């Protein structure tokens, strides 16, 4: 049975496409995976895939794009038939598309940096998540800390404050503030295929945790 992972966040530039592309690349190593880019016309994931096709032979990874929520629902309905995972890169706003992703996804990841602006924007998203939960009890949205500078006091204080304020569960795996993520993305690669071993380990840990959560949800 296919499982859907939605990457959503209201604010732009928080790392949705970075997480979506890396997760799609790693999951597709073993299982057929579809990456759906819903952030058009920006289309970062779609551009990444286009570059990737010239770099790495694509065996298990396919790309699709959706311009509105109806197209997304219809597309996902077709892709779940022959893919094990669907990774949806959402748009940077609370629109019909984001609402559809929330309800469709087995697991929603909410990338968040330890900055006040990003935490404020996530607070805006909370109401929609609660609303979705009332309609569909399976809705599971969890924070993924991105560009996290764990050694700084500000990051520690902000993440603690966000934990209390937002009340969302969070993944144990955290992504650090590393240039390797943007370098790999620009080359159509996952950070797993790039040079920085620390980034490699971070993303592998994230993918492993996501797989574990999805495995528990299959039971």
């Amino acid at each position, binding site marked *: *049975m*296919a*499982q*859907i992972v939605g990457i959503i966040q209201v604010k732009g530039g928080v790392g949705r496409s970075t997480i979506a592309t890396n997760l799609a690349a790693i999951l597709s190593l073993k299982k057929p995976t579809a990456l759906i880019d819903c952030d058009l016309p920006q289309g970062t994931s779609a551009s990444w895939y286009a570059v990737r096709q010239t770099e790495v032979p694509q065996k298990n990874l396919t790309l699709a794009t959706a311009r509105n*929520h*109806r197209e997304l*629902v*219809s597309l*996902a*309905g077709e892709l*779940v038939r022959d893919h094990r995972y669907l990774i949806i890169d959402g748009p940077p706003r*609370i*629109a*019909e*598309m984001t*609402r*559809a992703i*929330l*309800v*469709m*996804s*087995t697991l929603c990841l909410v990338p968040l940096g330890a900055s006040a602006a990003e935490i404020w924007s996530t607070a805006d998203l909370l109401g*929609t998540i609660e*609303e*979705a939960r009332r*309609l*569909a009890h399976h809705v599971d949205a969890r924070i993924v800390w991105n560009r996290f500078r764990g050694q700084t006091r500000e990051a520690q204080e902000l993440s603690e404050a966000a934990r209390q304020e937002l009340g969302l569960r969070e993944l144990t795996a955290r992504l650090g503030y590393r240039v390797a993520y943007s370098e790999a993305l620009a080359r159509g690669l996952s950070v797993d295929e790039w040079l920085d071993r620390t980034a490699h380990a971070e993303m592998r840990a994230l993918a492993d945790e996501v797989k574990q959560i999805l495995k528990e949800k299959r039971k």
Partner: protein
Amino acid sequence: MTRPKTKPPIRKPVFDEATALRFAAASASATTDVPAPPAAAASPGAPADAAGDPDRVSVTLHLKRETIARIQGESARKGKSLAQVVDKLVAKHLSKH
């Protein structure tokens, strides 16, 4: 005329398409959840519609029917729109804190 016999689907649907579409569409109709009283349209100085005023945003509030009825009653009594009444009440309350 009978339909041709087909195999029943054995795979559990991954997600409910109808629910996803319904929830997504709900955001588009959020401002129509509570109809404005007739007095609002005729009242002078009523605020512009949220869609036309960049300073106003639309939110969906799930209130008790009783509360909505009270707001509607107050809005009819004052000849103001629901948004104006709610705006004033919230501003009045928040200013105390």
